[in-house]
């Protein structure tokens, strides 16, 4: 079954993970779930892409002029954790309503609660399954403009 998508109907997801294999996998999972994917290898790059880096002018669209419908990020990353990235996103008036999903290979209740309380939509255990990502895509991503 093939579905025709117009450019604006395809959800655009920013996937953040410092692990190369996991980045490749999450990109494939999301593409297979009919998403357009941009990947970032750490929190700083993600913030840059989102236009949230300090001294960047905040506008409705990021520097590349493309809107992001969802952000999925690994928790354990050097420099800036997924939690810290989540914080920055939630502090942004422009991006606070973009759903953020945190992934982790470790099942630590405190960590999970912390992220959910900070406003993460979901906490998912790695490795992600295709069925999980398909479900996520249908449940979370609204294609209408924010």
């Amino acid at each position, binding site marked *: 079954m093939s579905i025709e998508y117009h450019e604006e109907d395809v959800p655009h997801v920013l996937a953040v993970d410092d*692990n*190369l*294999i*996991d980045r*490749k*996998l999450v990109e*494939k*999972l999301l593409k*297979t779930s009919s998403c357009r994917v941009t990947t970032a290898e750490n929190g700083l790059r993600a913030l840059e892409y989102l236009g949230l880096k300090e001294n960047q002018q905040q506008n409705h669209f990021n520097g590349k002029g493309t809107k992001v419908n969802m952000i999925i990020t690994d928790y*354990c990353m050097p420099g800036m954790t997924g939690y810290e990235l989540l914080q920055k996103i939630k502090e942004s008036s422009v991006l606070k309503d973009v759903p953020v999903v945190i992934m982790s*290979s470790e099942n630590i209740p405190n960590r999970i609660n912390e992220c959910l309380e900070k406003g993460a939509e979901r906490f998912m255990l*790695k*490795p992600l*399954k*295709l069925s999980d990502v398909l479900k996520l895509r249908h449940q979370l991503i609204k294609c209408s403009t924010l």
Partner: protein
Amino acid sequence: MERNQMHTQVANTRKSLFDQGYLDDQFIQLEELQDSSNPNFVEEVVTLYYRDSARFLSNLDQALEKRPLDFSKLDNLMHQFKGSSTSIGAKKVKTECTHFRNYCSARNAEGCKRTFQNVKKEYTTLRKKLEAYFQMSRQVGPVETACQAR
């Protein structure tokens, strides 16, 4: 006739990788992501894994030479490597990584060193087996893995 035999051989080889515990469900997840637009996805990911993870192993080798051992650093390095190994379904490798991390928590130097040798051994064994499997698969052409029992 011969082609069917080759297909069966590939299927049996694949099955034995699961039966003998080298691979787990996650490998099947990779296979599910392979399609006509990306017919070599599994092999690509595995190749990328072996290329990318080599540096974790050499960093671990170096870190294990230091006196005294920095268990926190060792654990961080192994966390990364374990993550990648888990993501490709490398079951035995993953198990040894877990043992290693347990020894790190226990600050057991001998345990760490011993387990690390096992990690490397399983890593190398799996590589050989997967290389042989992929080569075999390529020779017979696409195999329908979706219908096969594990």
